[in-house]
């Protein structure tokens, strides 16, 4: 019975995600469009509502091209490997007080561990394409993701110390009990998290792995059709996952005034995160590679460590 329920839940989440990704892309295009004194897509459906659906249809119907010199097996496998972990992490996300899949005791660790696997997909895709731009994009992508994994994890540790649990639901309940969201209690951690999340997602201004002006399209240069769609799907799914994770950790998850159900609050907060990313993309130029790494190792990690130390001291001192 459990298994059946899990299967149904997984399918439901997958369906929801597909829709969410479709509209996240539309949302992004609209947001950036208005920020760039243009209207964005407006042809298919009212307010361009069906634009991304049409785009996805187009991608699915395109010819499936595998470069002759590519490493076929890995080339085919890579988008799936990129997508799977991005989807797997949703197992521990708790959409509302009652709606969740797994009440995992080590939810935080699970999320961070599994999500770090997306880079395997990136690397496989970039390497198997047998294209130099893809390879450079993959190398950049992975070195960036590995580096920013650290501040991402370290920034979360402060919360873990305060809550004393790795369970994502416990973290929300803690925020409910205290009456304060962690964005206030752990503001430095929040900033570090936001920055490293952007880098993890390869979004602007840290979108070096897919910097179109130098690497054409980075690791998925050679991909087209539904494989490309898969990569896009993975990218946006991961973005949604990171937003959901951030909502849980820093914005009190489903908490909010009672006039809206918890899940609506949760989704609204996620949208806010997504909006911030799109906003940054429309605003900032791309950072330098060296600066990116230096910023990570010389600024973010020490700051995150400092945050952990201070939090630990406060925890012991205040006797929470």
């Amino acid at each position: 019975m459990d298994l059946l329920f899990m299967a149904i839940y997984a399918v439901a989440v997958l369906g929801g995600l597909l829709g969410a990704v479709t509209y996240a892309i539309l949302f992004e295009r609209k947001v950036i469009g208005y920020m760039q004194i243009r209207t964005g897509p407006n042809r298919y459906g009212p307010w361009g509502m069906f634009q991304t659906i049409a785009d996805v249809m187009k991608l699915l119907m395109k010819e499936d091209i595998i470069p002759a010199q590519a490493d076929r097996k890995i080339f085919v496998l890579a988008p799936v490997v990129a997508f799977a972990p991005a989807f797997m992490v949703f197992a521990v996300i708790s959409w509302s007080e009652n709606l969740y899949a797994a009440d995992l005791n080590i939810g935080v660790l699970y999320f961070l561990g599994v999500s770090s696997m997306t880079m395997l997909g990136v690397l496989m895709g970039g390497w198997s394409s047998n294209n130099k731009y893809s390879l450079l994009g993959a190398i950049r992508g992975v070195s960036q993701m590995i580096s920013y994994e650290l501040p991402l994890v370290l920034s979360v540790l402060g919360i873990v110390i305060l809550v004393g649990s790795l369970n994502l639901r416990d973290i929300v309940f803690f925020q409910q009990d205290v009456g304060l969201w962690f964005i206030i209690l752990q503001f430095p951690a929040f900033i570090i998290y936001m920055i490293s999340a952007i880098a993890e997602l390869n979004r602007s201004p840290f979108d070096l792995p897919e910097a179109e002006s130098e690497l054409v399209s980075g690791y998925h240069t050679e991909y087209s059709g539904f494989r490309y769609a898969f990569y896009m799907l993975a990218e946006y799914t991961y973005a949604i996952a990171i937003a959901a994770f951030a909502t849980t950790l820093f914005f009190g998850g489903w908490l909010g005034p009672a006039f809206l159900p918890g899940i609506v609050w949760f989704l609204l907060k996620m949208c806010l995160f997504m909006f911030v990313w799109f906003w940054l993309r429309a605003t900032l130029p791309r950072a330098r590679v060296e600066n990116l790494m230096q910023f990570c190792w010389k600024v973010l990690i020490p700051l995150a460590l400092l945050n952990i130390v201070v939090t630990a001291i406060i925890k012991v001192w205040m006797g929470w």
Partner: protein
Amino acid sequence: MAIKTETMTLNMGPQHPSTHGVFRLVVDVDGETIKRVEPVMGYLHRGSEKLAERFVYTQFIPYTDRLDYMNAMTNNYVYCAAVEKLLEWEIPERAEYLRVITMELNRIASHLVWWGTYLLDIGALSPFLYAFRDRDHCLDLLNEISGARMTFNYMRIGGVKWDSPDGWIDRVKEKVKVLRENINEYDTLVTGNEIFQSRTIGVGKLTKEQILDWGISGPLARASGLKMDIRKDEPYSIYDRFDFDIPTQEEGDVYARYKVRIAELYESLKIIEQACEQIPEGDIITKKGKRIMMIKPPAGEAYTRAEASKGEIGVYAISNGKNKPYRIKLRRPSFVNVAILQELLIGKNIQDLVAIFGSLDIVLGEVDA
């Protein structure tokens, strides 16, 4: 023990988003560090100089438009000026003013395109659209007076083709105000941006010696502290009547080039404003200039140059007394400026390659002629 690493050869272009046209850079990279660069060009070669020898003098004017299509007015001008020099003609006052106004408007359009595409190159998406909005202000004005938005074919030997339409000068004045406001806004938004500065400051430095050695001109030279501007050094047309500065920077890096170009936008606006105030009534073309087939410069040769948005554009015109030029040599600034790439890029990384390449502001129509 050194680990044996592979260098790989990267063919950037001829279809690559940031080569701004059909240009190819064969780059040997070790990791991301560039070891060797070889620019490959000619994909857009039309044989302009050969074509020039087949046409009557006036017929070649539209071909100059296609050189640097971002800044076609100056190309028009310099070719006409070269022939006028051989002919030793006097140009009517009003025509000179119209030439200056259109050239400067075109310079603004060209610099704005550079501004937008350059920021696009280094990853900022939005400035591109804003730059094109303002470029359109300029192009609309030029369209009104010349009938074309990019390849104007506006200048004639001995003057200009059309007089300004009614109220055009006033509209120019209005737009100058709008442009100044907008450019100011962009300046404050982008110039101080920390990421932008980290991408540009100290990147792609050119020393004065390198500039002179490689014959580089225009904003690139001025960004390296050389106060070189043909409008001041050897005032052509009526540039000696206007009060404007030559912005220079000492650093010679990409950021300095950026600042020089932004400052030049303001100076161009200043020139346009003054020209609009001073413009007299009168003829727009000399009487002789209207008889197109009869233009027969006496045998002789002359090098004429002008300050295009990319640098020194020159025409070496040789006449043998017939109604077709014997030889037209086009000194295209992009073609000369791009040569520095093979020296400048060594030891930089791919990301800097884009930043430096973009900062040279080359147009492939001009490189390949």
